[in-house]
Every structure is written in structure tokens, then in C-alpha cells.
């Protein structure tokens, strides 16, 4: 119960809910249902199914429940507390308006199996959102079911498979660059394909010659992130698309980096056939400590008939929306209609920004990242020091050699400076990588502060090795966690 667990007053451990538990204590209360017959459990459930003992949960008062979780929030950094330049994650500020929008009872209290006649508002919203995402990506049709980026990838790969099968062919390989995010190869496997890796060239982009070598009629397609995970735009995208299409392959667009190009260039216009978006990156759905997100998948005309269903569509008779299933649908990919409230947040974000605002988002995101790269020149290695998009990758390679400064030390030391760390050790092709994505919502002043902090850190590598010292806990023993696994309180 002691509040010393909050850094505001002390730095002790916070007990768990189970440590706080006292037999007989409670927070719950329920309404009087007004039953005359107060059936006992035995009257309702056959004896063989009835648990002899209730499952132990925890027994705390509402007061202690509130104290506990409020204290835990004081041990947690977040965008609302400060900058979060975590590359590839697009940790932009999430407008509070979107919270209000998603909190509307008329959205939040709708049953997913209610008939279409009762859910016209939701269907209109989903349909409007799908249209907007198509417009933004240059695609023809869109499913909102996938609940995150990885789910979108797998959906996309199954669409790819369905399309090839419809063409009457079996293909077994999907190409991904060596800079790709881990979900890409993992999804390829789940999609029933083999991963073929294409190396990056010395400019950090897909090595076109190497790609051509790998292309044959067993290639189902390629998954690309553009700008890629180095923050670089694949300048030869037109050539890549032509080459892949030539062998009958499809181009899959991993939309994790879509923030960079909103309103500036569209995957569809680059030649992509399938696009997933991470609404929890580009469209300001808050990350929630690791989700929920939303990973809609949009496709070009020729793939539309394979999309998962049901999809909301205007009835031909003009009588509102109805659910339709595309002719050759691959089937459902979500229990219901996707992460609906996250989709509602994204729709409100699109409305408030508008077409003009979305382009401004991309411009400012790219401006910030480039400015920061310029600013950090000479301080850290910048392996690919040319105009980047919304993020760039720095490295401590030289500093490590010279003074032992690892990317990890920078990350930990930066916490003391009041910033979340960049993404480290990704993409894998850069040694001691620091992947920095400031996002458009950070001001020039914040960037300046961040750059100053990074400069200070580079200047004192020994100190960085000791960090962090001012956080609720110091460096955490990750090896021990894996070696001596304690995944639950009961395993202590």
C-alpha cells in the first residue's frame, strides 16, 4: 500500500495486487437483480462442473486498487510525458479529441452481432474510413479487419496466395529485404511461403541487381517498406515494381512508415498491389503500452474480390448500408469487424486533419527527422547520410570502437535525460543502430533538447555505461529473467 513505490516520493518496489490481497476484502458491488428465487450455484450447474473452490483472484478494496494502479502509472513513461523518438513506431502525440470520439456511447456500446439496421452509424464510419484509406494509399478496396500490422501482413500474404491460385499457379517464395521488420519474415512463414532475403546496396536500398537474380516464376511477391526501415525512400521503386510484376509477382507494402509520405506519394502509384497500414502509427491510435492497434489492408482493383468479409457497402436500393462478402473472399481474419474503436479514433484523426493536414503531417515528420540528422552529424555515425524521410539511423560504431559506447548505453543514458530512447539494434544491417523517429508533433525546441542530450551522451561514454540511475529501477537483468523464468506471481 505504501506510496513510496512512486518515484515522486521514493523508489521502492510496488507490491503486486496479490501482495495487497486480504481475505474477505472487496471492491465489487452489483445491482439488485430482484430475483425472488435466489438459486444457488448447485441449483444452476451440474455438480461435476462446479468448482470446489473459487479461483483465487485477489481481494482488495477499490481504494487500494486505485492506489496500486495509479502508483504504477507513475512508474511508466509515455508520449504524454515527453518525447518518444522510437524509430519505426511513430510515437506521435495522440489528440485527446480522439479519446472523446471513441468514448461516445453510441459507438462503444454497440453489439457486434446486432443486425445492420441497428448499426448504420458504424457501417457508415467504417465505409468512410475504408474509402479514405484507399484514397491515401491509391488503392481500390480495403478491409479493416486486421487488428495490427502483423495481422495485416498475413492477410496480405493470404490475398497474394489466393490471387496466384486464382491465376492457376502455385508459388513458394516471397522476397524481403535484409532491412525488413521481423514481422515480415514471420508472416511469410505463416502465409505458407519461404522467405528469400534480398540484400541492401551500399545506399541502403534494395539491391536491384540482387533482386533481379532472385526473381523467377516461383516468386509470389515482395514485401517492402517504403521509406524503408533506414528511413530511406526506395528511389528505384518503379524499376523494382516492374521487375516483380514481370515475373508475375505482387508487391506488398508494409505501411509502418506511411507517415512519411501522406499526401505526397501513394503506394498504389508506386506500383504496390497490397498495402497494410498501422493506424496506431500513422493515424494516431495510441499504442496502449503495446496495443491495440489496427492494420487495415487495402488492395488494387484486381485483388478486391479476395478481401476478407463482411465489408460494409451501400445498398443498391439506397437504403443504407449492408454487409457484403467479396466474391472470392479469403474469409474472416478477425472475430468481428476489427478493432472498431481504434478505427473510430483513426477516422476522427483523419477528419480533424483533413487532406491538407495529413500532408502537413508528412512534411513536418520528414523535416524533423532530416533536421535532426543534420544536427547529429559528427556526433554519431550516420551510415547513410543522405536525405531521409521520417526517420534515420545513426550508429555508435565509431564511438564504440573509440570509447566503448554502445547503442544500448545511449538508450539507457537518454532516459536520464528525460527522453525515451530511439529503437536500438534495428534494422539488423546497421551495427549499433540508433533508429530515430522524432515524428511531426515534436517541436524544434524539443529536437534541440534531444540533440543536446545526445551530444552530452556521446561526450561521456563512461557515464553512459552506468545509466540509468534516476529511473524507478536501474538496468534490468534480462538474462536472469529468461534463465530463471518467473512468468506469474505463483511461480515466484
Amino acid at each position, binding site marked *: 500500500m505504501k506510496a513510496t513505490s512512486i518515484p515522486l516520493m521514493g523508489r521502492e518496489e510496488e507490491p503486486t495486487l496479490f501482495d495487497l490481497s486480504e481475505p474477505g476484502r472487496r471492491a465489487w458491488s452489483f445491482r439488485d437483480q430482484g430475483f425472488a428465487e435466489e438459486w444457488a450455484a448447485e441449483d444452476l450447474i451440474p455438480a461435476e462442473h462446479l468448482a470446489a473452490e473459487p479461483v483465487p483472484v485477489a481481494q482488495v478494496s477499490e481504494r487500494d486498487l486505485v492506489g496500486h494502479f495509479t502508483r504504477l502509472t507513475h512508474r511508466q513513461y509515455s508520449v504524454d510525458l515527453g518525447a518518444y523518438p522510437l524509430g519505426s513506431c511513430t510515437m506521435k502525440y495522440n489528440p485527446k479529441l480522439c479519446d472523446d470520439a471513441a468514448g461516445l456511447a453510441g459507438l462503444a456500446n454497440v453489439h457486434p452481432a446486432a443486425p445492420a439496421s441497428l448499426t448504420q452509424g458504424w457501417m457508415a464510419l467504417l465505409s468512410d474510413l475504408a474509402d479514405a484509406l484507399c484514397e491515401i494509399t491509391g488503392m481500390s478496396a480495403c478491409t479493416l479487419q486486421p487488428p495490427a500490422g502483423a495481422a495485416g501482413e498475413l492477410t496480405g500474404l493470404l490475398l497474394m496466395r489466393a490471387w496466384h491460385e486464382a491465376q492457376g499457379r502455385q508459388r513458394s517464395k516471397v522476397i524481403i529485404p535484409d532491412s525488413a521488420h521481423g514481422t515480415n519474415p514471420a508472416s511469410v512463414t505463416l502465409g505458407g511461403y519461404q522467405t528469400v532475403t534480398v540484400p541492401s546496396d551500399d545506399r541502403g536500398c534494395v539491391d536491384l541487381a540482387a533482386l533481379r537474380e532472385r526473381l523467377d516464376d516461383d516468386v509470389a511477391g515482395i514485401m517492402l517498406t517504403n521509406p524503408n526501415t533506414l528511413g530511406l525512400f526506395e528511389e528505384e521503386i518503379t524499376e523494382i515494381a516492374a521487375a516483380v510484376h514481370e515475373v508475375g509477382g505482387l508487391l506488398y507494402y508494409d505501411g509502418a512508415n506511411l507517415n512519411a509520405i501522406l499526401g505526397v506519394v501513394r503506394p498504389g502509384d508506386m506500383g504496390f498491389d497490397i498495402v497494410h497500414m498501422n493506424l496506431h502509427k500513422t493515424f494516431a491510435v495510441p499504442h496502449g*503500452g503495446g496495443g491495440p492497434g489496427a492494420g487495415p489492408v487495402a488492395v488494387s482493383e484486381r485483388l478486391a474480390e479476395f478481401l476478407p468479409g463482411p465489408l460494409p457497402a451501400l445498398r443498391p436500393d439506397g437504403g443504407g448500408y449492408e454487409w457484403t462478402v467479396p466474391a472470392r473472399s479469403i474469409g474472416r481474419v478477425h472475430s468481428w469487424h476489427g478493432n472498431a474503436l481504434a478505427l473510430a479514433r483513426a477516422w476522427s484523426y483523419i477528419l480533424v486533419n483533413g487532406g491538407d493536414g495529413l500532408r502537413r503531417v508528412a512534411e513536418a515528420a520528414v523535416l524533423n527527422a532530416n533536421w535532426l540528422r543534420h544536427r547529429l552529424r559528427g556526433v554519431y555515425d550516420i551510415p547513410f547520410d543522405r536525405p531521409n524521410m521520417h526517420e534515420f539511423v545513426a550508429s555508435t560504431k565509431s564511438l564504440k570502437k573509440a570509447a566503448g559506447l554502445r547503442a544500448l548505453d545511449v538508450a539507457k543514458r537518454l532516459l536520464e535525460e528525460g527522453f525515451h530512447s530511439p529503437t536500438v539494434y534495428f534494422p539488423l544491417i546497421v551495427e549499433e543502430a540508433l533508429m530515430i523517429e522524432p515524428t511531426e508533433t515534436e517541436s524544434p525546441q524539443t529536437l534541440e533538447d534531444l540533440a543536446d542530450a545526445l551530444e552530452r551522451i556521446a561526450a561521456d561514454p563512461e557515464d553512459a555505461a552506468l545509466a540509468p540511475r534516476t529511473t524507478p529501477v536501474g538496468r534490468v537483468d534480462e538474462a536472469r529473467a529468461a534463465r530463471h523464468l518467473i*512468468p506469474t506471481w505463483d511461480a515466484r
Partner: protein
Amino acid sequence: MGHYVPHTDDEIASMLAFMGLSSLDELFDAVPAAMRLAAGSLHMADGLSEFETLDEMARLASLNRACGPDLVCFAGGGAYDHELPAAVKRLAFRSEFVTAYTPYQPEVAQGVLQTLFEYQTLVARLSGVEVANASLYDGASACVEGLNLAVAATRNQRVLVSAGVHPNWRAVVDTFAVGTGHEVEMVPLQDGLTAWGDPVDAKPASAVLVQFPNYLGCIEDLRQARAYADAAGALLVVAFDPVASGLLNTPGSYGADVVVGEGQPFGTPLSFGGPYLGLFACKLEHVRRLPGRLVGETVDVEGRRAYVTTLRTREQDIRREKASSNVCTNQTLIAVCCAIQLGWLGTGGLRELALRSARAARATRQALLALDGVVAHNHAPVLREFAVRTPLDPHVLVDRMADEGFLAGVPLDDGGLLVAATERRTRDEIDRYASAIEKVIR
């Protein structure tokens, strides 16, 4: 244009100047000119003020009929109308939980990490197996991952799926089986319960997937399922309703190897179906095949207790194409809601929740079966959900009942109606509901 980009024009100009650029457009010079859009090319309206945006969202919301006093909810089928205490909403919506990323830097993420550790403990207890992950997307994806684990563990592609599993979940299993190559076989129901057949005839399989209680609300006999799985050399994967653990034996107590489920009943509103919460737990022996994140307890450099994501070598960012799953972003915030809601319920409240739901279901069932023309769909024991048959097509019935102020249930493909009741439903509502049904089927 939105108002969330902080840069003033002066600032933009001076940042560009610092880089030797003179326009924002130049930032995009790497993009081939042929595909570049001129500003304003998107066919989209310009940005609105925050207030106009909220008005538009409210307009859309007003086109729905939400559950509440004007549409009393007797629908379930995987989405339940439970009470949401104020404390849970307030806590889970604290911005530290809402606006954090996946806890990559544990030193400043103990809030999320410890909450997930508590969540894992709770899910493991309710499941009755030793270890639970930090969440999956939803009930369907949890089923898929459960089968994937079983296939990987047994190296057999054949999976048996009870027809009592939620039809949408089965649909998702089928969709993803195309990629993984699982051979999915459906095991039919008989009078509400899975008819496994004689274990002696069981052919080798990797998994037996059964829902508990099943989609029709019926309490499956997990001993039979276990026996059949054993005979087939399969893992028993149980898709459970976590509310059931308030009264019923846990899946783990019947020997389930993997326990999956939908966590929506704890702390998540109906939400038109998402974001919900995929529950995933398994026996410790399978922990290295666990999909998704796992939080473990450890210490920091000074020996203070600390939490961290662990066994990360299972995960896609490290193992890549050999990862146990492709999941990255999960449903952490919903897991946080679930943990807080379970904390609010506690041992006693969970039992009460299940008991009161079961009472309401019993009362509703009795009231319906007393009506002329309404008959039982099956005779299996139920917890808080059950199916009936009425003289009316269930879709027509649901539509007409909406006019009476009720979401009457979920229509079944076989013409039945699936009806659920929770601790929120009162005698009075149930009586009014039954009268309305009587009226519309007359």
C-alpha cells in the same frame, strides 16, 4: 488542416535553411517526380476543428442503436454486456497506460510491465495452467495461435475443431489454415455438445479444439475431450469463457494443454467487436512455443524487483521466419483493463458475476420456455447463455424486438436464437423481455 503540427512558418523556414533547403517539397526529392502528388491532390475534405470533428462522430454514433436502457441487451455470442465500474475505466485510461509503446525500455516501463505480470498471473489462474502471455488480438486469433502451437509441438497438421466453437473463430481458423497448411476437421455437435466419437477410433491429430462453454452456451464435457485428445495424441486446446472460471472447474483442471479465449467480458465494452482481448495460456512445458510477449520477474542492478519481457528469442524480431508467431503489437491496453477489472471483482466478485449471470440466464430461459411456441434448442447444461427455437425466423425476431427495446439475441444458422444474460439483467427486464417476445411471435 489539423492543429497538431507545432511548427510555425518561421521555424520551418529556419530548419530548412539549416539544411540548405528552401522548401518543404525539396525534402521529398528522393521520390520520383512522376509519382509525386501536388499539394491538395488527395480527394479529401480539408481538416475540421476538434469540435466539428466530434460533432460528426456524434452524428455517426447517433445512427447506431447502442445497448442500454433503450435497447436492453440479451445478446452474447462472444460479446457480453457486463457492468463496467468507474474505477476501471479511470485507471485504464490514464495516459501513461494509453500512450506508451510496447515496453522496450523496462527501466521506464515498470507500470505496464508489472500490470502485465499481474494480468498473466490472473489469466493463468483462471485457465488453470501455469503460464499466460501478455495478450493476443481476440478470441479468434487466440484459437489460431493455440492450434499453431499444437501443430508445432506435435508436428502433425491435422487439427480437430468442435462445431461448438464460435463460427467466426472457426472461420478465422479456416482462413489462416490456408497459409499454415493445417488440415482442419470439424467435429459435429449432438444436442448441444460435441460428439467426439469413440476414442478408440481416433486418428492421430495435433490438436483438439473445443469451446467451454461452447457457442451455444452449453457446458462441454472436457473429460471426454481430454480422453479423445489423448487417444489422438493431440494437445487439448480449450477456448474458454473466463467468466466461467467463477463457477466451473478450470480448463486446466481437466488437463487442457493450451487455454485460449476472449477476454472481453472483463472490462471491455461491447465496442462493436473490438478491440477485444485474446487470452492465451498453456502448460509450462510449451512456454518456448508461446506466441507473443511474455513478461517475467527479475531484478535490476541493485537487486530491486523488476519486470521485463522475456524469452524474447521466440519472437519475430529476433527469430524472424522461425518465430513462434508473427504477433508484435498485441492488445496490451485491453489486458490492462482486464487486470484492473479482475482486481475490482476479486475472488468473491468473480464468483458472484458468474452466479448472477447464471441466475439471470436461468430466469430468462424459464420465462421464454413458458411461452407458447418457444422450445429448447438442446438439453445440455448451460451457464449464462442458451439457445431456443421460436416460430419466427430469428433475424425477423431480432428486428422486431429492437422496436420493443431489446437486442433479443444472436440468430443461429439453424433458425435458433442464442440468448445471453449477465449480472446486469434484472427480473423486471427479463419479464419485459419475455412479454415482448410473446408479443412479436404472436
